[in-house]
């Protein structure tokens, strides 16, 4: 019984604590579960006895989760930490990973999410601190991470997050067997994920039931991806007559699911723009530019802060307008998208543009 791992749950909601306690106590490693409803008490408990994993909420009165985690990171560097929160803000996620937290989980809502969460906690409990190894926070390229996991013959699922974009790479016994993003799968998804400039990653529990769709070796995959990246640089420089395999970034965005047309409105008095998907883009470009200007000015008068986005729902199509990186974007969407999907899709599209 002395070998049973110990989990400390920290959340200001007692009902949630009771629920998680019941769920986590069913894990195969039969952990002992302790609970605390506030940060100072949790810190006192961790001072009094060693724990294997701390599962912590972020939004709590008096001492919030970020404060607790920063103290824990300094005092107990070997303790595994998991953030379980309802806040799905990317800034929070980055700050939490910056503190060296092992996992950042949105509070699970479905049976499948609960199962994944339990698998991850069980996997963390399995990696006992006294077995040694170094832990820390460091920026590594995705290629380095994949090489490391494959060379170590590991089995895991890498979850990679780049703003609103999310991708997963399944690694089984040191081989990349599958990859997926929102709209792509297999090798295409793998290449897309590796093209992202930056982001966060999480190591999730392995999924041996995942069917293998990538037959190429990981060395081959990484080599092809590196070659594709080199070719892209050559194309941008224009220093060689290399035949273009991929189309322009705007054409890529125009193929994004749900997009009917897209306009990128450039700054300047000459009112230049690039367009895809419209026969006569001039009136739409003019409308987009004027409407954005009009609402920017209204925002200034109301002191409502900078304009983030304008979404319009129409009987034939929806449309989104958003300023991004010194340009204005006007995107026409299929009518089937809901207003919530519209905001989310626009965020992903702009992140794709940045990638």
């Amino acid at each position, binding site marked *: 019984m002395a070998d049973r791992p110990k989990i400390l749950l920290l959340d200001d909601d007692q009902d949630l604590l009771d629920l998680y306690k019941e769920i986590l106590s069913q894990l195969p490693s039969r952990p002992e579960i302790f609970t605390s409803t506030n940060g100072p008490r949790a810190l006192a408990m961790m001072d009094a006895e060693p724990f294997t994993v701390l599962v912590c909420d972020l939004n709590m009165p008096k001492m919030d989760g970020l404060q607790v985690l920063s103290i824990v990171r300094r005092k107990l560097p070997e303790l595994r930490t998991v953030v379980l929160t309802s806040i799905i803000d990317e800034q929070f996620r980055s700050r939490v990973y910056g503190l060296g937290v092992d996992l950042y989980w949105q509070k699970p809502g479905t049976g499948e999410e609960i199962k994944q969460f339990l698998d991850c906690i069980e996997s963390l409990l399995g990696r006992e601190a006294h077995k040694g190894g170094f832990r820390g926070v460091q920026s590594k390229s995705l290629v380095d991470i994949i090489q490391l996991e494959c060379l170590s013959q590991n089995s895991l699922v890498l979850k990679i997050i780049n703003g609103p974009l999310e991708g997963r790479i399944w690694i089984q016994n040191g081989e990349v067997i599958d990859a997926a993003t929102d709209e792509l799968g297999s090798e295409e998804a793998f290449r897309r994920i590796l093209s992202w400039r930056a982001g966060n990653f999480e190591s999730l529990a392995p999924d041996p039931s995942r069917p293998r769709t990538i037959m190429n070796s990981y060395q081959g995959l990484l080599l092809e991806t590196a070659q594709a990246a080199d070719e892209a640089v050559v194309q941008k420089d224009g220093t060689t007559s290399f035949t273009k395999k991929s189309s322009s970034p705007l054409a890529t965005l125009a193929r994004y699911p749900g997009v009917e047309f897209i306009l990128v409105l450039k700054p300047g008095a000459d009112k230049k723009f690039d367009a895809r998907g419209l026969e006569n883009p001039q009136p739409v470009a003019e409308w987009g530019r004027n409407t954005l200007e009009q609402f920017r000015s209204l925002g200034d008068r109301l002191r409502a802060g900078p304009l983030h986005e304008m979404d319009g729902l129409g009987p034939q199509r929806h*449309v989104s307008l958003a300023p991004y990186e010194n340009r204005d974007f006007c995107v026409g969407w299929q009518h089937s998208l809901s207003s919530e999907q519209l*905001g989310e899709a626009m965020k992903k599209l702009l992140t794709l543009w940045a990638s």
Partner: protein
Amino acid sequence: MGLLSFLFGKSADLLPLPSGSFTVDCDGRVLASTLPHSYPTAFAQDIATEVLTAFKAARDARIPLAEMMIRYSSLKLTARELRGGAIIFLTPQTLSSQTK
């Protein structure tokens, strides 16, 4: 307080962002409102004018719209076209409303 007022002046022009809704006719006249009394009618009128102009401009550009959501960092405007006029909802944005 006296010293602070002297140093920073009075915050007469700082208004809390309003929460509520109002309806306007096709000429931009406010017909009914649940906005706080303290919120100047001129601001509601201003919002209505811009919203109605945007609806009309969208029709002219052949992208007719029935609803618009304008998201600022601290305020969200939702406008639905209503027989030439509009009903407009104002929702201040907080961290919790942005993360929902």
